[in-house]
């Protein structure tokens, strides 16, 4: 197959017309990618969806960091981990006991996050600082607020 166009002119792929047509793509390495027009369109749609989702996730993390900062007397840390199709957010209270006032706020926050950010299901919870590794995979989880020594129990162990 010859190149569709070697100029700066745009090349169009119409799913209705080109869906079953084979396109041969030549990246800068020596690979050759053979793909149908339909596969190219689906790949582009997926990468747009992923980009949109990541933007939403970044916005949510920024919102969470602000939310935690405003409650620094109650919250010492917040971890985020992807769990299957949902986002798990676990908060570390500043004390060593379950904080009932924080729990009430987290229930409202959970509703707000799901309604306000287009990222799917979010699960929110509260855990003791010393048990972070019992509830999270620390290789996958990200600390979005606080510092890891406080949030993982060093402070509790010292007190």
């Amino acid at each position: 197959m010859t190149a569709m166009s070697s100029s700066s002119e745009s090349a169009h792929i119409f799913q209705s017309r080109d869906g079953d047509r084979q396109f041969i793509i030549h990246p800068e390495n020596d690979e050759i990618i053979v793909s149908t027009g339909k596969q190219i369109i689906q790949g582009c749609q997926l990468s747009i969806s992923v980009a949109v989702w990541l933007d939403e996730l970044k916005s949510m993390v920024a919102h969470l960091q602000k939310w935690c900062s405003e409650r620094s007397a109650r919250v010492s840390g917040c971890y985020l981990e992807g769990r299957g199709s949902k986002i798990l957010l676990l908060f570390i209270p500043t004390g060593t006991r379950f904080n009932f006032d924080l729990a009430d706020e987290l229930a409202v926050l959970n509703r707000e996050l799901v309604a306000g950010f287009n990222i799917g299901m979010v699960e929110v919870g509260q855990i003791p600082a010393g048990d972070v590794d019992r509830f999270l995979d620390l290789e996958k989880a990200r600390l979005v607020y606080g510092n890891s020594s406080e949030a993982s129990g060093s402070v509790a162990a010292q007190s």
Partner: protein
Amino acid sequence: MGIPQRHLDQWLHNRKFVSLIPATHPDWIVTVSFYVALHAVDALLQSDGVRRVNSHDSRNEVLMNTRRYTRIWDAYQPLHDLSRRIRYLADPLQWITFEDIPKQVFRRYLYPIEESVYRLMAVPHTHVDIPLQKPGE
């Protein structure tokens, strides 16, 4: 849709069990209290004709995203979270105490959930406060 008798029965069944749990085990009082709330909620959802609630995630999704259930969600979510974490703690008595149960777990979470369920199902409130065993009994 009628009143779902099986969930009502299990709601009462679990409620009776809560009062049998020794004061030394507040972690299990919390856990069973959550299942009291769960059957109350499932009774309401069935009464409302809500289908496809077959997991914690699907139940949570319905409660969280339905305005009718907002008050229930705000009490159910903390109770669910507390119950699902406390069972796995090596030292649960460091996380909550027996003294937290009547005021925080029951009055703050369980009873408001039950009251909302009664109100939304339009049936008279018949439950009394759960009697707890005294420490040392």
